């Protein structure tokens, strides 16, 4: 009798056990910022958009459609190029007119709703209108290109699309200005953690309430560990004089301090060197001029802030039962060497120019880096959902050339790592909001109240 009861119980248990979960990529939507858009080398351009991590993921998962707001070459930006490597690397924007959007007539919300420069607040509340572009207004160019109708936000579009699968990677721009301006100021260059936590909870709550999608949340990597912040030493080696630490307007640099790529052009002009003017350490609140030195304590402050934002993401994920892809740990492990991406005996690293992962802006990945992210994300999704999405063919990625055969342009630019022009363009794209504390873009007055119930019907839904 006991055996019978045991057997029946076992059968009942087996029957109750959930089948191996699968993920449905019939309608995959990616919410996020520049990292989701496939932004690379300070540009949003179709070649890289096609190699963005959501596009790669969609292809690998067999999604029949994955529409993106394509921008023709050389993108907006336009894209950076490496014009020479020695004696000093020189990076500058290609000398071409910016590209133009060409998929703007697509009648449904894009699958890729990644908007370069978007903060979490922007993802929820910011709209975009193509007519702005037509009138020559580039202030909110990426919002205008991605969102188009002047009515809906990225979050609303995502809900309206009723996705079957959704990734959300947002928050990098809630702290990036602190690195670009080399000045962490809570509420100015960094979104306050409490404010972020509340918004994040609301955004994910809206997605949870108003869609049936499987959702993967992606946290925020340490921007302080990107080549933009780590490539330059706080000292120079002067023949005959030995190691000389650079001088900033707040005092000499020490080991542990970081000089951003924005400082390269200044050092080439003699800033920070003996007898030269000091490097600007911090953001000038009055003029908006960025600093180029991240002191060790500032690095800690930024990292602590990112930890706080990531804790908020974890907390929300836990509350709604969504998995978090820990890309912060992935990049940290690559930087520390704990994880060495290795393909056929060839290693990749987080090093600038030679590492193979990051693009010329030192912040965003290039196509190999995005493919690496997609491949790691696929393994994560497969593990979380019991899916069998094939991994990325990295041989194809590694041996594929860049978007052009660049050749080496005449090296007339300044002998520096990132030209001043290149840095200024990058900084202009991701500026600190000095006139707003905390950084909040108010929704337009005529935009209807943000509610979950209404969102599903506003944007046209794909058939």
């Amino acid at each position, binding site marked *: 009798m006991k055996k019978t009861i045991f057997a029946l119980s076992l059968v009942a248990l087996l029957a109750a056990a959930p089948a191996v979960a699968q993920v449905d990529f019939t309608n995959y939507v990616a919410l996020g910022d520049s990292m989701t858009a496939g932004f690379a080398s300070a540009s949003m351009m179709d070649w890289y958009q096609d190699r963005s991590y959501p596009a790669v993921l969609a292809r690998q998962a067999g999604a029949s459609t994955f529409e993106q707001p394509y921008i023709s070459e050389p993108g907006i930006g336009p894209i950076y190029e490496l014009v020479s490597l020695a004696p000093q690397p020189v990076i500058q924007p290609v000398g071409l007119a910016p590209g133009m959007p060409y998929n703007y007539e697509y009648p449904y919300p894009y699958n890729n709703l990644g908007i370069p420069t978007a903060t979490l607040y922007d993802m929820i509340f910011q709209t975009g209108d193509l007519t702005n572009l037509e009138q020559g207004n580039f202030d909110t160019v990426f919002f205008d290109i991605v969102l188009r109708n002047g009515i809906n936000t990225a979050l609303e579009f995502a809900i309206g699309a009723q996705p079957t699968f959704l990734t959300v990677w947002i928050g990098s721009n809630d702290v990036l200005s602190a690195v670009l301006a080399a000045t962490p100021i809570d509420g100015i260059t960094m979104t306050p953690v409490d404010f972020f936590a509340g918004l994040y909870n609301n955004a994910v709550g809206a997605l949870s309430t108003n869609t049936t999608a499987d959702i993967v949340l992606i946290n925020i990597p340490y921007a302080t560990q990107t080549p933009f912040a780590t*490539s330059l030493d706080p000292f120079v080696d002067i023949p005959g004089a030995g190691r000389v630490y650079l001088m900033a307007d707040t005092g000499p640099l020490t080991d542990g301090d970081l000089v951003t790529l924005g400082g390269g052009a200044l050092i080439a002009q003699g800033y920070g060197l003996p007898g030269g003017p000091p490097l600007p350490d911090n953001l000038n609140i009055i003029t908006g001029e960025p600093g180029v030195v991240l002191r060790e304590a500032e690095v800690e402050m930024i990292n602590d802030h990112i930890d706080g934002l990531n804790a908020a993401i974890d907390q929300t994920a836990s509350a709604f039962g969504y998995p978090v892809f820990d890309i912060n740990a992935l990049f940290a492990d690559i930087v520390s060497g704990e994880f060495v991406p290795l393909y056929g005996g060839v290693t990749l690293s987080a090093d600038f120019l030679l590492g193979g992962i990051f693009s010329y802006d030192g912040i965003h990945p290039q196509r190999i880096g995005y493919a690496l992210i997609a491949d790691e994300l696929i393994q994560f999704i497969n593990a979380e959902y019991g899916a069998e999405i094939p991994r990325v063919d990295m041989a194809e990625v590694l041996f594929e050339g860049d978007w052009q055969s660049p050749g080496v342009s005449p090296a007339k630019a300044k002998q520096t790592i990132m030209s001043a022009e290149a840095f200024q363009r990058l900084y202009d794209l991701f500026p600190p909001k000095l006139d707003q504390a905390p950084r909040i873009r108010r929704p337009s007055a005529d935009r209807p109240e943000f509610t979950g119930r209404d969102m599903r019907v506003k944007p046209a839904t794909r058939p």
Partner: protein
Amino acid sequence: MIAKNRGRVLLVATMVLVAPALCWGSGFALFEVGGRQAGMAGTMVAVGDDLSTLFWNPAGTAFQTDQGIQLMFGTTLIQPEQTIYGSSPYPGEGYQADQVSQTFFPVHVFLGIPVNDRLEVSFAFYNPFGLGTEWEDDFLGNFISKKADLMVFDLGVSMAYQLSEDFAFGIGVDYMVAEIELTRNIGLINPYDQRLTNVAEASLKGEGVNSAWAWNAGILWKMGGGFSFGASYRSEFTINGGGKADFTQIPTGYADFDGLLSTFFPFDGKVPIEASIAFPDFWNVGLAWQNEKWTISGQYGVMGWSAYESLPIIFPENPEFSSIREENWDDAAQWRIGVEFRASQHWDLRLGYLEDETPQPAAGMSPLLADGDRVSNMVGLGYHTDRFRFDIAYEKVEIDTRSTEGQSPDGFDGTWEGQSPLLHMSITLKF
């Protein structure tokens, strides 16, 4: 900044240099020491009645003193075939590549000289270990191994003494000399086009005499009723050798990138290297039965590949390239059974069967050597007169199809498939 990256580039280069030598496997061991023994799957430990016993059991020659001075020599033609079926992320699903077709011919020469009717002194020259792999120029694993050649020569002297009519022992010393050459490409991401690019070819080649001493011993007991029992042991040894590394630059088309690389790599000359390779011990026990027409022999052996724990390669003048990689191979067992049928006064027919376990962890398979459990079937034929014999055997080795299971330490995953035909031949002259 570039200087800051230098360490990383050197790390890349070091891994590129070291990885190939990590993957020697049971295929690295050779048992090709005679046409007769091959036809019987090498089951000579308890038989020991020709000079191939100098490899399998040195005690065997003590029972051959009545044969006079013997000289045995021959070779084995080996044509290994190997195919990789790739998986993602690298080299990718659907990728397939075959090894370049090559023929190897390890040799064996044995000389047995009876001192009296109980004692025989013998000399041996053969290849107990060897490896050769080569891939096409467009092979996606060329950053791991493009071409590898390894051969170990054993120059041995041994003596065997017959303690009684039924029991003998043998001991010997071996002077092992290794020759090795490894070639591979070095790949880096070209910062201009962000494409994986061949920037150099690295070749590591042993120089001078890289050698070590080893020893062997065995017993052979004829138990009566046609039964005999044998046991043998060959010691492990470690070759600490030196050589030179040669880096040849491959122009990328970007002059300043090439110039930068020339500051990382010593393109202007050969640089010395030092390496240390541990070779396994090998013990065997066997039981045989014989009558006038038949010999039936079985044998069990274990190669102590667990001695191969790591591979250090040291660049004394370029310490930034030096590295030690963990291997952690396992001991590997093998079963053999062989039969000989003496069909007539001059002709013998033989059959053999071998199961040989691989010592190599699945994850360690690479373009240098992707090993798996092996099964061999042999058939042999012998012709002999009082003073001459010729033996030939054909062997077909099938290697288990085996996957790296996504764990390749070289980042080269897939399923490996291999096989090899072998043709063993030897001639024995008696004086």
